[in-house]
């Protein structure tokens, strides 16, 4: 990026199933105030706003327009980005672009989903091609069941490994004050007792529908150093979409797929001289809709060799105390307010780099982190964050 951009403030709500106590704007306001407090800024300091939300889930047209006053965007520039699961990353990316273009000095990314106002599975089903696929789609669960089957067959991973992913996530979630599902799971057997949604995906293998918001404040190099003692630098980011008319977007039954993750890594790693991710990057916050997909993503992001993702879990490499911690926050299977989910990944990675993650701070010192997003028919976004450039 031409201009250097840093994260100078993050704020989240406590993610949960229902927020009957607040409307959408009030819920988002909580995260806005938390981020301002973190940055020690006033709303007057924010020059432009980028909103991230998938309006189909709540059934609100132009949802950003309804919360302008609560957010503090009245009389300020801004707009909403929309684009499925990766929406939040794109909003943060645009927040960076606005700064590195020299148009603004300080921008705020406002992201949320309030799933108690709608139904995510119905919303996701409405993403199918209207003319011939609408009746065939049952939301995200069935897509990730295909992925899990394909992964199971090819890699040799067992259901026990998926259960281990859940246990790892739950340990993180129980330490994270903001996470939604804190199940307190004690054993693999406990996970394996949860019912199947779509075989082989069990209830505990899959992400919830959460209500929650996350806000990130971005600043130019000049301002960032004045605002925060520990700015976290956005070293680079990449967004890779693809056309949806393909078989096996998530799984790979033919063994001939090009994955958007591979394209994203090729671009991001190459530009940043990364040849060995686990040596050169300290931690990852990844967007994993299911336990099975987490193991698969380890491979797609080159954290390990093909078909060895489950071995990382088995060996505890990606545990909070491990060599290469992944999703110390509990990840997406613990909290999933979709429009905010990618933003939470970036915010959590930034907290880890600052050493401010509290109870769920990784054991090893985190200087560099990757935060990813997944959406649509396997779209990928990746952010590379650093303590110093």
């Amino acid at each position, binding site marked *: 990026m031409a201009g250097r951009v840093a994260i100078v403030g993050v704020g989240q709500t406590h993610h949960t199933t229902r927020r009957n106590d607040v409307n959408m704007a009030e819920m988002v306001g909580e995260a806005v105030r938390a981020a301002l407090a973190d940055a020690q800024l006033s709303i007057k300091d924010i020059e432009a706003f980028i909103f991230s939300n998938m309006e189909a889930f709540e059934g609100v047209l132009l949802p950003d327009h309804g919360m*302008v006053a609560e957010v503090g965007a009245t009389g300020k520039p801004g707009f909403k980005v929309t684009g499925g699961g990766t929406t939040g990353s794109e909003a943060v990316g645009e927040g960076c672009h606005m700064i590195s273009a020299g148009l603004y000095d300080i921008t705020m990314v406002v992201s949320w989903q309030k799933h108690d106002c709608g139904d995510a599975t119905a919303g996701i089903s409405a993403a199918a091609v209207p003319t011939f696929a609408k009746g065939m789609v049952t939301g995200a669960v069935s897509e990730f069941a295909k992925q899990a089957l394909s992964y199971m067959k090819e890699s040799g991973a067992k259901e026990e490994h998926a259960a281990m992913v859940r246990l790892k996530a739950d340990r993180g979630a129980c330490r994270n004050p903001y996470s939604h599902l804190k199940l307190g799971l004690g054993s693999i057997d406990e996970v394996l007792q949860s019912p199947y949604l779509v075989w082989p995906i069990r209830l505990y293998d899959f992400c919830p529908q959460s209500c929650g918001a996350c806000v990130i404040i971005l600043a130019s190099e000049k301002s960032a150093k004045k605002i925060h003692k520990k700015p976290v630098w956005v070293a680079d980011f990449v967004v890779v979409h693809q056309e949806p008319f393909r078989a096996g977007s998530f799984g790979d039954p033919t063994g001939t797929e090009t994955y958007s993750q591979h394209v994203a890594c090729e671009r991001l790693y190459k530009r940043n001289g990364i040849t060995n991710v686990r040596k050169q990057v300290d931690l990852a916050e990844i967007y994993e809709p299911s336990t099975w997909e987490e193991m698969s993503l380890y491979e797609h992001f080159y954290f390990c060799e093909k078909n060895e993702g489950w071995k990382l879990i088995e060996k505890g490499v990606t545990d909070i105390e491990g060599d290469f911690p992944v999703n110390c926050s509990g990840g997406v299977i613990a909290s999933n307010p979709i429009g905010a989910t990618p933003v939470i990944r970036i915010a959590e990675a930034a907290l880890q780099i600052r050493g401010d993650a509290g109870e769920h701070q990784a054991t090893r010192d985190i200087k560099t982190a990757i935060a990813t997003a997944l959406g649509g028919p396997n779209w990928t976004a990746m952010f590379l964050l650093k303590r110093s450039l």
Partner: protein
Amino acid sequence: MAQRAGIVAVAQTKYHPNRADVNEAELAYEAIKQVLEETGLTLSDIDSVVTCCQDAWDGRTIASLNLQHVVGAHFGHEFTVAEDGINAAYVAMSQVLSGDHETVLVESHMKESQGEKSLIENAGFDAILMRQLGLDFTSAAALQARRYMDKYGITPEQCAKAVVRNHGNAKNNPFAQGPMDITVDDVLRSEMLVSPIRLLDTKPISDGACVMIVATEEKAKKLARKPVWMMGVSNCYETHYLGDRELADCDALVKAARKAYSMADINDPLRQIDVAEISTEYSYQEPLWMEGLGFCGRGEGGKLADSKSIEMGGQLPVNPSGGVLPGNPNGVAGMARVAEAVLQLRGEAGARQVKGAKVALAHGYTGICGQLQAVMILANV
């Protein structure tokens, strides 16, 4: 800004009341094909795509799924802006100026024919206090029109003149949907929709797409016969609740314009701007927005509408294309204004050309009573 962002090519479909013959991607591709042919680029030369569409109107979650294959987003970088398309052009400009992208394709489409306008718009109001009132954008606009007309003594005749002039200008625009031979009396006698807004005070349902390519200064000079430069841009939100707003004064537009003007070194818009393309879905908006844009003082929009200075051949021709009233889809309308401004600055606007235009203004808005206002200043030198 060290660099400038340039518009290399623009294309629009002909706006039409019902394009049942094409889906969104096919509609968009009609325009995409033209910008690719004009520039000699292929989709693989595009390194970022900014689409502009809304899930509610497309009837599809992640509306840009419709488009990935026609915009060149396969394994590419794509953002969707869910506001009027002029904001997508703004995003493209930021991407180019950031140094991250060299060639950005901007696409905006809308098929209003396949949605239930009133129902969709009602979902744009606060769910607890306003939605139950049955408001849609037209009934809200009527409140704004009434307040504006009462506060400043703007007359229905002055608003009707805007309709007649826009329809007249549209006769010179091959992309225009439905230019009509109408008189002020025809407008004033047309069916009352929501007082004081009559049928001819509004635009018809419309389908269409608009596409452009934005590039770095260096690249634009290579790709375009006549690059047009984005000199200043800004947008600005009003607050949501109608009761919290002074509907007769468009403060957000004033702010957006001020910022765009300062970026482009404009301090006397009426003199320094040669042609303006502004978005008005309702006739009262033309005088109101002209006040917001600083073409006249507060409350003087009606007088300006009466004068000849905004006609073709006047001091500042407004909407040589005919603007939005003869038929433009919402969401595309503001981006179409940018496209029209580009044609003017390239001297390629045909019968609607403003001679020697060097600096143009494009305006777009999104939402209830123009809640999000956007202004862009373009120049050919």
